[in-house]
């Protein structure tokens, strides 16, 4: 591995100053991707900036309006071990509990999973479906961006030089809203999604779908937000037939490739299956919550 400097700023101010030094920087949160990428020569940097000593990035909690605000460097295990997080944002936990194995989840973070910008990342479709916003900071201030606008290509986020992903904000689910994240992997753990689907739906009193978001993983150059699948759902009854139409719309939107993890045809087929299954389970969650 090429050598680099290790910096552990204690505040965002210190972190921004380090970023502004003109040297090539990489962020270190859980390290489960970036350390391996450095070791395997897939990334290089002059300095590695450890974000885990910045208090804002290491805490999470529910805001007054129910929004779940998660510091970008909070380990996944810490999130899904919290019963409140599990109860109020189960779809986030669908993703957080399957990223790598237990030892990975002790370290890996939402911030890292997002910034690594893998098209197959598990958190991305879940967060897009949940309508999550990302808080991005720099020495010029902070701003918000929807998760679906955060990705620029395989391994590339829209972060600009000098910017740090600070926080993930997940809006509360309403009383008649449910969400689910579902991926397909050949093994039963320790695998990368061949395809995945995250969904959120909201129902009215007559079980008609009034809101919907659908997102896909591993079937395009970036995690894919699929408004056409939502359009197939909104205004329709929450039935298998409706879900299958959304599945077909999702499959039509997918532009997968063939590689060692799966074929394009397999992935297109899976998108439809997974979207339907995720919708059915989101519906179950709404019904269970009643």
């Amino acid at each position: 591995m090429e050598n680099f400097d290790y910096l552990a700023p204690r505040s965002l101010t210190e972190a921004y100053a380090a970023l502004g030094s003109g040297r090539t920087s990489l962020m270190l949160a859980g390290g489960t991707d970036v350390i391996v990428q450095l070791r395997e020569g897939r990334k290089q940097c002059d300095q590695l900036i450890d974000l885990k000593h910045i208090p804002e990035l290491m805490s999470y909690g529910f805001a007054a309006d129910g929004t779940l605000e998660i510091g970008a460097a909070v380990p996944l295990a810490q999130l899904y071990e919290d019963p409140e997080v599990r109860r109020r944002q189960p779809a986030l936990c669908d993703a957080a509990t399957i990223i790598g194995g237990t030892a990975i989840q002790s370290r890996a973070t939402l911030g890292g999973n997002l910034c690594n910008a893998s098209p197959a990342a598990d958190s991305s479709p879940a967060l897009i479906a949940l309508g999550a916003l990302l808080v991005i900071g720099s020495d010029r201030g902070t701003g918000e961006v929807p998760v679906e606008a955060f990705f620029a290509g395989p391994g590339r986020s829209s972060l600009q030089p000098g910017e740090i992903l600070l926080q993930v904000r997940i809006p509360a689910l309403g009383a008649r809203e449910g969400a689910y994240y579902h991926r397909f992997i050949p093994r039963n753990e320790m695998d990368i999604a061949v395809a995945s689907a995250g969904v959120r739906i909201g129902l009215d009193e007559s079980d008609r779908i009034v809101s919907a978001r659908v997102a896909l993983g591993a079937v395009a150059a970036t995690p894919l937000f699929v408004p056409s699948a939502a359009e197939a759902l909104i205004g329709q009854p929450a039935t298998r037939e409706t879900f299958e139409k959304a599945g077909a719309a999702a499959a039509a939107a997918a532009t997968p490739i063939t590689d060692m993890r799966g074929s394009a045809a397999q992935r297109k087929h899976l998108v439809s299956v997974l979207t339907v299954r995720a919708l059915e389970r989101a519906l179950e969650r709404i019904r269970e919550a009643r």
Partner: protein
Amino acid sequence: MTTIDRPTYRIVGTRPIRPDGVEKVTGKAQYGADVRLPNLIQGRILRSPHAHARILSIDTSEAEKTPGVFAVLTHKDFPVAEDKIEELGESAVNLKELSDNILASDKVLYKGHAVAAVAAINGHVAEEALKKIRVEYEVLPPVLDVRDAMREDAPLLSETRFTKSMSGQASDKPSNIAAITRFQGGNVEEAFAAADHIVEREFTTKMVHQGYIEPQNSTASWNSDGTLTIWTSTQGAFVVRAQVAEVLRLPVSKIRVIPMEIGGGFGGKIPIYLDPVATLLSKKAGRPVKLVMNRTEVFMATGPTSGSSIKLKMAEKDGIITAVQAEMAYEAGAYPGSPVGAGAMTMLSPYNIENFVIDAYDVVVNKPKVSAYRAPGAPVSAFATETAIDELAKAAGMDPLEFRLKNSAHEGTRMVTGVPFPRIGHEECVRAALESPHYQSPIEGPNRGRGVASGFWFNAGLQSSVSVAVNVDGTVNLIEGSTDIGGTRASLAMQLAETLGIPYDDVKPIVADTDSVGHNDVTGGSRTTFASGLAVVEAAKDIQAQMISRASKLLNAPEGELRYEDGAVVSSDGSKRIPFAEIAAAQGRTGGPIYGNASLMARGVGGAYATHIVDVEVDPDTGKVTVLRYTAVQDVGTAIHPSYVEGQIQGGVAQGIGWALNEEYYYNEDGTLANASFLDYRMPTTLDVPAIDTVLVEVPNPGHPYGVRGVGEVPIVPPLAAVANAVAEATGHRFTDLPISPRRVVEELHGLA
């Protein structure tokens, strides 16, 4: 457990704690990568980015100038290798090809082929130096698939390789087909003409890796007196010594190989990859050098076993398998030596089949040279035969196990080589499977199916040496030279304690280095508990004779009136008795140290059979196959330590499930192995296999005093076919290509391909 005519033993058949266990659960055990020496430096290897290329030049000058670099090595530093064959136990190797595989000379034959090496103050510096080595290549088109490589217009890996056949005649043109072997008996044409049913199928399988968790490693110290010490993880220290001696043209006596604990091998740690490189780096650097592969290197450049293509035709008449015709081609990788011969010799061994013709092709391709992998060659040939047998049983309207029983081989049945079987236990396995709770219970629910399959694997005999030192306190040291890859210190110590009639805890076994014990062939071929066990029993008998001689002095009785019994020497009338410990304590005054030896070429190998039952469920929408239940029945001869016998079976089954469902070498067109990581190679995790039930059938091997049969390899033979047969039941589709991955299943069931 079904036991047939087996005596009751005191220690054999019990489950004591293994002698090396505490060291291994506390992290104290020293594996190859754990070696620490004064002045130790680290080596790294530069590997080819091309699957097939001629090396035009290598410029190492910049690397040599890098601060912290002590030595740089290319094939030019190697002595010219002889074009001759060396036997390695489970496999044989051509020394020129072995040498070229360790560091390429004129050509690179697969992506990942080693071309140069650096030793530096640490691994990071060595890696930086590797980047400064300039290699000029003339890139050639690669050939990656066995059938493509057999075409006349295929790119040739070597212009001087001609096909060898049984008659020894070479082909008149260079070819990637290194050898063709035919096994033949009876008259297949007549049998096919008279058949009730015929099945004809083509099967393919991909290369798969042994998947041991510990990467290859070697630490070498070129000593100031011209001797060489090597610390390494290997299945056979003596075979490492022999290979290093040949490749580097050193006298065997000057090389000492110290076998460290080994983190799995499954056949893959028989060939050498690193030892000569570490040796010459050490010689150049004047310091000991350690080389440890990373996981990518392990996948790209060690191991795998062959991908294969098998065309099979099989006939049945009145419930009897009457004929088999097979044409099987195995990928050898970069150099000849696939296990296609063993595949051919084992594929019909569970059965009594009169008429057969099997043609076996050994074919080179631009992928890593294959090495042995647990019952090398047999799993994929059994995949073909056991699939066809399943279909014939159906056609004949018979239960698949009853069909196998009716056609079973038994003592006296001739193998395809014409050699008759000794006492074997296939019929007993099938009967035990039929009676098992698993087979007796129904399988219910949609998309579920049950499959069965049988398998056979040889036992190797080969050479073993042990010494036994009796201590004055009545304990003994067992000095052996067989790598303990999964409990053989225990199984050998148990045989010694049983034969000497002393407590198991009084035996302290060690695996000695090559200077400290007589020659031992590899731990491979399921041979160690059997063959080194034979040596242990022989050495114990040597001890018994010495004990009788000493007791004769102590008891003032003629030796002829004494016998050894239950840990003591007793007189024939029973009036006098002196226990082992007392004779041991008196050894200094009765003639000196009591020290037993045995060195032998083991005869009387048993051969091992297994019959497996598996239930699966297939998700027709995703193509995923879930293994619900698994029972493995095996004739184990006599289970010396049943827990470790069960463990061998369970481990083989898990590997077989991985092979059947997900594992494969996935190559891009340019010859890049795209899934060279544990992440994407997809070996089974805890969640991918169920509890694996074992049924130990004991049909003692008459060739061993305790009836031992080698148990380690045959468990991987049936699972591929058993799983495929279960998937066929569950889906109604017959999958003849492995792996039966979700991709393959979903594409097949939904017509996506």
